[in-house]
């Protein structure tokens, strides 16, 4: 189904008015000049069009979609209806007249081979031009000095209306028929399309998967003897027709291209996603994983994410919502690509899953400049050593992505990763508290509020709040202390409360006495301890999560209050 979905995606892309993907049998090539010929095959006026475009000081050739290039090494092999001057005009600056004569003959022969008997004015004009052309006349062409430096030429028919000769429908069809007939591969049923087609022996390589070979790696390959069965060789082990092979590799390479908004790196898996029908969601999802600072879509993304978080449908088009959404994660393994992740859902399903993720994650932010919808990378950075992306655990990254997209429980290792980081640097910030909350809500079915919940009687939560109040009391008594109780006691207070809280309470009494408004802290401590009978000997991982959330909520509350009183003064 992976190959089938990719092939279908290719069909969708190739049917767009200006396809971003090359058509089968065609490729994008750098073309510099176009020869202008009339219907009789004579050069028209002007004889040559310069197709190069000037950008600043540089002139760059235009990229045109032309018949696919032949594989050429030292031998002579001509392209169809486009090539360099040596082939098209039989003249170049290489100083090997015999070879140049051969290349011109090859070009002429190839055009005759495909174009003979074709009822098309453009093709006929090219053929009669080639038959009548004398290579010795080439230097008389305008701009020859530049043209001769390995430039590529195409043909354009005077008064033909439709652009270039190779773009004329009849010519295109002749080229495709020629390709199909030229394939010497054996025929059979294609397991992607179900149609009879020549079976591809080798599949083109896929480029753009991180850490794979730069020349590309194969998704379908049989590069070890033990991979083959029933005495079949190479890709005859899996009968995939040539058109399907072209379609799926082109689509995948398109998704993996540089600058693609449909590609994200998650752990060691390069992940691409696409939809069955054109959909805006396709482009927005990349944002979810890796929000970049500014690419002009921020407003659209925000509206989209707000809608899905609140459980609304981001679009009104029911057909679009029900169309398929595909996610494919690829990781390199030797010269091959392995499928790490493959998920099929509807657009609506993915939107709902993403929405639930952000609803579970929702937490009051400490600062307004913190992202309301933190991307996957922003979350992962918070649980990596030194906050560096290279220290992100790839297994956890992949598992977290999977849970977000499939609305499955979060990975069991998530809370430990967060708590380990909190203990390492004694920082409970917004993304960390949000991740702990999301885990407790989704995996443990706990009710955890978005902001401070004074009525929550969870002992971990209460102790977290208490710790924040004690810290505040110390801060008021000894402003600017080098080492606060948080630096010294956060770890043990969250894991083994009974061992440290009695001492902290004694310490707090001194702080309260010393501070100007100590009474406030005293009242708060009383209120928090109302439901706490004893300090537990130790807290479980879930309770430590609640501790961190309680601490975060209470600290935010403390901060808010002081800001207000200052404002009133």
């Amino acid at each position: 189904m992976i190959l089938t979905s990719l092939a279908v995606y290719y069909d969708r892309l190739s049917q767009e008015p200006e396809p971003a993907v090359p058509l089968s049998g065609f490729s994008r090539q750098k073309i510099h000049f176009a020869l202008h010929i009339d219907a009789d095959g004579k050069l028209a006026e002007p004889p040559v069009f310069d197709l190069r475009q000037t950008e600043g000081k540089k002139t760059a050739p235009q990229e045109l979609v032309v018949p696919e290039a032949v594989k050429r090494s030292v031998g002579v092999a001509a392209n169809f209806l486009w090539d360099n001057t040596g082939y098209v005009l039989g003249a170049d600056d290489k100083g090997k007249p015999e070879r140049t004569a051969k290349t011109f003959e090859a070009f002429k022969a190839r055009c005759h081979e495909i174009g003979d008997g074709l009822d098309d004015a453009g093709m006929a004009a090219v053929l009669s031009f080639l038959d009548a052309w004398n290579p010795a006349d080439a230097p008389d062409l305008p701009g020859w000095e530049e043209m001769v430096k390995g430039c590529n030429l195409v043909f354009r028919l005077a008064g033909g209306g439709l652009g270039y000769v190779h773009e004329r429908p009849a010519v295109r069809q002749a080229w495709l028929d020629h390709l199909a007939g030229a394939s010497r591969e054996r025929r059979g049923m294609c397991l992607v399309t179900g149609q009879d087609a020549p079976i591809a022996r080798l599949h083109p390589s896929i480029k753009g998967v991180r850490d794979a070979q730069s020349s590309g790696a194969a998704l379908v390959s049989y590069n070890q003897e033990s991979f083959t069965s029933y005495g079949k060789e190479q890709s005859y082990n899996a009968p995939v027709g040539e058109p399907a092979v072209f379609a799926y590799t082109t689509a995948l390479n398109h998704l993996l291209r540089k600058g693609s908004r449909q590609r994200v790196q998650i752990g060691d898996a390069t992940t691409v996603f696409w939809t069955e029908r054109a959909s805006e969601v396709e482009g927005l999802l990349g944002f979810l994983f890796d929000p970049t600072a500014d690419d002009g879509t921020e407003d659209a993304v925000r509206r989209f994410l707000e809608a899905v978080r609140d459980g609304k449908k981001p679009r009104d088009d029911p057909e679009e919502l029900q169309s398929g959404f595909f996610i494919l994660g690829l990781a390199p393994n030797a010269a091959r690509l392995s499928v790490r992740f493959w998920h099929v859902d509807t657009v609506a399903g993915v939107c709902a899953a993403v929405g639930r993720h952000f609803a579970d994650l929702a937490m009051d932010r400490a600062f307004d400049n913190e992202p309301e919808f933190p991307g996957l990378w922003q979350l992962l950075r918070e649980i990596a050593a030194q906050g560096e992306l290279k220290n992100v655990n790839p297994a956890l990254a992949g598992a977290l992505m999977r849970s977000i997209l499939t609305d499955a429980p979060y990975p069991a290792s998530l809370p430990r990763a967060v708590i380990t980081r909190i203990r390492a640097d004694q920082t409970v910030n917004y993304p960390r508290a949000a991740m702990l909350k999301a885990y407790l809500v989704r995996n443990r079915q706990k009710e955890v509020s978005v902001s401070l919940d004074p009525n929550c009687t969870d002992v971990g939560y209460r102790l977290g709040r208490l710790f924040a109040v004690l810290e505040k009391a110390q801060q008021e008594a000894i402003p600017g202390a080098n080492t606060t109780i948080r630096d010294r006691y956060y770890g043990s207070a969250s894991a083994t409360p009974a061992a440290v809280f009695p001492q902290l309470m004694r310490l707090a009494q001194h702080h309260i006495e010393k501070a100007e408004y100590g009474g406030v802290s005293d009242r708060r401590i009383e209120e928090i301890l109302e439901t706490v009978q004893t300090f537990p000997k130790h807290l479980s991982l879930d309770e430590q999560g609640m501790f961190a959330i309680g601490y975060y909520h209470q600290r935010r509350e403390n901060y808010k209050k002081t800001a207000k009183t200052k404002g009133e003064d």
Partner: protein
Amino acid sequence: MSFGVRLKVWGDFACFTRPEMKSERVSYDVVTPSAARGILEAIYWKPGITWVIDRIHVLSPIRFTAIRRNELGGKIPYGNVRSAMKGGAPQPLFIEDDRQQRAALVLRDVAYGIEAHFELTGQDDNAAKHAEMFKRRARNGQCFNQPYLGCREFPAFFEWVDGPWPDSDLPAQDRDKDLGFMLHDIDFAHDMTPRFFRAQLAGGVIDVPRFDAAEVRT
């Protein structure tokens, strides 16, 4: 008189490898007819019968997981095996010398109901005998070799089903689904050509066409 069999099979893992993703294995979504045939043959088979899979019930959600394994890269050449059999030296193959790490996307916690019947290959054989033997063996949990779910390393457990099929845990939105072209079986008589059919889940059940049906194609 019909001699249909109804067997529930299940296991922790399964990998019904897609032919196009054979190197870095990716499993089909559900059991293939040839893998189901293999399970039945592991329980009971004689040259006098051929198993024909009629229907496959998908009883548990389709879930994938990724694993990595070290496997062998090469094969022992056929000639070496033959010479070893003729009394030559045994042919060792050391994994340390020819190791290939392969990733696989395999199925987790699968359960299927297999509906099948057998056909006699010879003329004068007693069909009821085979039917009873299969039934007895399946009930007792007997098998010639351990049945497996696509790969030998994923054993299958099985039980004979008398009454209705147990309720399927397959989520409602997955019960009707086009699974694409799926391997039906290999045509061993004609150069071992694979034959494919369009697998459609309808109400959580796949109707498997006969091997020689028009919709099964090479």
